[in-house]
């Protein structure tokens, strides 16, 4: 009887397998959750969100703002965080003293100029402070200097110098021909404005500085976006100036619902950031969440929107981008109308769109500009290209080294004959070619424009041809690699193409270790990651999972426009219908 029981006890091999089956996923899970906890601790996102630590600051409703004339909503006046600066220096109303204070603050900034003058008939002493190059001098001469010095009319009936308050009133309302005027008592703030291109007017007797906005930055004109060219569609792209960019969006069409909320980001180099959405479309919770995350940004300087993207995205360990970046205003507008929100930042032509679903990365404005059949077919082609660029080399490796039975006989014969004399294993062979293609791509990017195409020829033709003739790689691989590379470039979003190219290498290793089974495993891994991934609360596989037929109307196929009546339901827009 005991023998029967003992026979049932599994051997060591089986026990070991059992332990491994439990332990490997368990420890993987533990490692991941540990890493996640670590990430939270490092960025202390939660703490910052509650405001207990510094971060991006909203301009709207912030105290200390003394705007006198209401400028447009997107005006580029930024609020300063003075609380870190220690003592606050204010103007006293005595010109000499104030000038002295100002000069002390700007002691090591020799590009700050002072122009002293007397105001019109009352001969009150005043001074203009500006920076060479940043200030529009013509404008300053015409609209500030000239009216001030010629100011006889306003003071016609006055014998004495008017009270400070009256003087200020007269200056603003009758003399200065400047639309944006701000009054501040804070010397630091006025210095900051001067350094950003405004002119500061100090007047004897007024205990404050008038900040007159007349900045003239050298900006790039509106040009065609280079990274997302389309054949049919708007040729205009964003440029580096925030006000230009917001203006482009405003000019897209007349609407009173386009909100632009201004934030200041960057602790040391303060920059303006604008959150834009359509008030009666975008979901409130989404807007609040984006605002909350912007406030958590805690960094010296936001050089590019990529910084913001990385600081506010959901999962920084994911290879997929959860925020879309684009240079195209039409793309931003389309996203806003779907109920998404966008972020624009001063100094970069790349706007951020969030939340993002996988399908969006494979869409181009042309899909909608062209007729629907063409648009659908091209979109289908892109899905196909994405699959190729992700799996083609992996399938090549697994077919050749594990599943020769899956290749059609005649192809198998020609592959065998073409691989005669190739000294490397399939993985090494594929890696050699893939890596050289990546190097070529990177090199082509860095090269000056006239040399770029030459580089393509050298790389594509000579290296490919020579490698085949030298017997280092087989000709079939060259085809696979080039088809893969071309497919990955067909992604309308360059960064999405990069993701696929990166994952391709992982797929190749999986294929080399386990063959087709490995490729399937890799696909499952990717799928399970994508299913779990969320972008601002919206599932990343959004349009496909959870499955709603409504969403399929504009996913792989684009139905005719008259059928696209609704906005994507996942975004829970306030107004779910586009029409009707």
């Amino acid at each position, binding site marked *: 009887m005991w023998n029967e029981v003992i026979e049932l006890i599994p051997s060591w091999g089986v026990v070991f397998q059992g332990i491994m089956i439990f332990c490997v996923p368990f420890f993987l899970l533990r490692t991941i959750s540990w890493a996640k906890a670590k990430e939270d601790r490092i960025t202390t996102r939660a703490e910052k969100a509650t405001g207990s630590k510094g971060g991006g600051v909203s301009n709207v409703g912030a105290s200390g703002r003394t705007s006198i004339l209401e400028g447009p909503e997107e005006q580029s006046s930024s609020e300063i965080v003075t609380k870190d600066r220690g003592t606050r220096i204010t103007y006293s109303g005595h010109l000499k003293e104030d000038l002295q204070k100002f000069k002390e603050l700007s002691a090591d900034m020799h590009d700050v100029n002072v122009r002293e003058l007397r105001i019109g008939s009352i001969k009150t002493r005043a001074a203009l402070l500006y920076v060479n190059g940043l200030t529009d001098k013509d404008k300053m001469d015409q609209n500030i200097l000239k009216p001030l010095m010629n100011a006889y009319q306003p003071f016609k009936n006055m014998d004495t110098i008017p009270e400070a308050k009256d003087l200020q009133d007269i200056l603003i309302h009758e003399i200065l021909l400047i639309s944006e005027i701000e009054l501040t008592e804070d010397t630091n703030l006025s210095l900051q404005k001067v350094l950003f291109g405004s002119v500061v007017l100090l007047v004897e007797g007024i205990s404050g500085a008038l900040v007159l906005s007349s900045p003239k930055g050298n900006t790039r004109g509106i040009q065609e976006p280079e990274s997302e060219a389309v054949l049919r569609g708007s040729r205009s792209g964003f440029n580096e100036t925030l006000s230009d960019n917001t203006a482009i969006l405003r000019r897209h069409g007349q609407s009173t619902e386009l909100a632009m909320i201004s934030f200041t980001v960057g602790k040391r180099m303060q920059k303006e950031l604008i959150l834009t959405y359509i008030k009666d479309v975008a979901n409130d919770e989404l807007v609040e969440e984006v605002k909350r995350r912007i406030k958590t940004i805690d960094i010296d300087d936001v050089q590019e929107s990529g910084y913001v993207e990385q600081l506010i995205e959901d999962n920084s360990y994911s290879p997929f981008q959860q925020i879309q970046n684009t240079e195209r205003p039409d793309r931003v507008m389309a996203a806003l109308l779907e109920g998404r929100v966008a972020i624009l930042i001063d100094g970069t032509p790349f706007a951020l769109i969030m939340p993002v679903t996988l399908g969006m990365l494979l869409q181009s404005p042309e899909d909608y500009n062209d007729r629907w059949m063409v648009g659908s077919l091209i979109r289908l082609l892109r899905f196909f290209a994405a699959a190729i660029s992700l799996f083609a080399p992996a399938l090549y490796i697994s077919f050749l*080294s594990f599943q*020769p*039975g899956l290749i059609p*006989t005649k192809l198998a014969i020609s*592959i065998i004959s073409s691989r*005669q004399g190739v000294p490397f*294993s*399939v993985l090494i062979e594929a890696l050699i070619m893939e890596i050289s293609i990546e190097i070529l791509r990177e090199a082509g990017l860095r090269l000056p424009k006239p040399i770029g195409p030459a580089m393509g020829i050298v790389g594509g033709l000579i290296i490919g041809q020579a490698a085949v*003739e030298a017997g280092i790689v087989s000709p079939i691989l060259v085809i696979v690699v080039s088809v893969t590379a071309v497919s990955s470039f067909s992604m309308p979003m360059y960064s999405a193409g990069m993701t696929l190219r990166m994952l391709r290498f992982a797929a190749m290793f999986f294929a080399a*270790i386990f063959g087709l089974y490995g490729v399937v495993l890799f696909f499952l891994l990717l799928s399970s990651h994508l299913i779990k991934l969320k972008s601002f609360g919206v599932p990343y596989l959004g349009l496909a999972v959870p499955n709603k037929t409504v969403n399929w109307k504009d996913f792989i196929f684009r139905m005719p426009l008259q059928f696209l009546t609704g906005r994507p339901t996942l975004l829970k827009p306030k107004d779910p219908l586009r029409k009707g």
Partner: protein
Amino acid sequence: MKKWRMWIVLSVLCSILSGCWSSTPIEDLDMQIGVALDSAEESGETGVANPEYGNHTKPAKIISTYQFTIPQGSGGALMKSAGNSIKNYYNMSETSDSIFEAIRQLSLRTRRTPIGHHLKVIVISEELARSNNLTKLIDFFTRDNDIRPSVMLFVTKGKAKDVFENTLPGQAPSFVLEGIFNNRDRNMGIWEPVTLAKVVGPLEGKRSFLLQNVIPYEKEIKLAGAGVIKGSTGKLVGFLDESELEGMVWLTGKGIGGVLKTYDPNNHNLITYEVKSMHSKIKANVNNGQISFNVKVKSTGRYAEVFAKESKKLHDGIVKKDKAVLQKHVVEMMQTTVKKMQKELHTEAAGFGTSLRNQHPAVWRSVKDNWDETFSEIPITYEVNLNIEEYGASDTSAE
């Protein structure tokens, strides 16, 4: 932080240590494309493996000949220049009573591993098929995971090995055999391709069936009729010649297209009819326990060649007359085939049994155990309806 690193190192190690687990680079593989099975007793050969080595006291029964491809050269240039003149296959024979052992014996002789994924044809010699149950012969091929169930089976009068020696330069016999079935719309001497998957069922169900017969013909190979495998024994009982096979094709309606040629009995003029489509229906009738069959064949086609004493315009009357002649010829062909099955082979392989089973299941149950013998006595009537749709581009007959 240390823990974190440790896990990274571990996971990387796991993948590196497993390496390219059970990977076999394709260039180190040898693709079997055909197998020929011969009886060793027939020729008296002992095979290549010398029984003097080791204690192999094996009863040498089957000579299995494997055909492999020779992948030619690297790159396109060499293939282009030499592609059509170099022999691109080679055969290796081994003798053993086990087919599996024979294939593993090959590993003593070649560096490259033989793989069965791309096996296309199996040719079995008459001698072997007459003396062995087919189930045993194909057991290895149906059991092996690599070998596809789409491998085609052939029998040959004579030695199977010879079939694999004959081909035009630049072509491998196995591929020729596989591709020859594309001509089914051209000639009715080609039976439907019989694959491993299609053989297993009839063998298990003790149903008789046909295997295409292939013979070496000058320097090539040729399909010549078909071998009949008797269901009850699983052995080859005989052959149908080319015209009998044609009769079988008409009986079963399995043809896609081909030629029907006959002479006008009055003036011995040639009439050639091109078959465009055919359809047959076997109706089983049971009258007081007496089974009889009625075969209805319908076909449409066109004149391919019409000869006459003098050129005359073709009209409905001529068409009607020719139709009758052709129909009579088809009936004769079918009768010959049925007679051969009934009287000579005592095997029914045309699907009469299936019709009876479907139409009169109770009757079938009573006769199925002795079906082949019962069939030999059953009267069969024929109805053929040909429809000559067109004359082609010429509306007169040739002189």
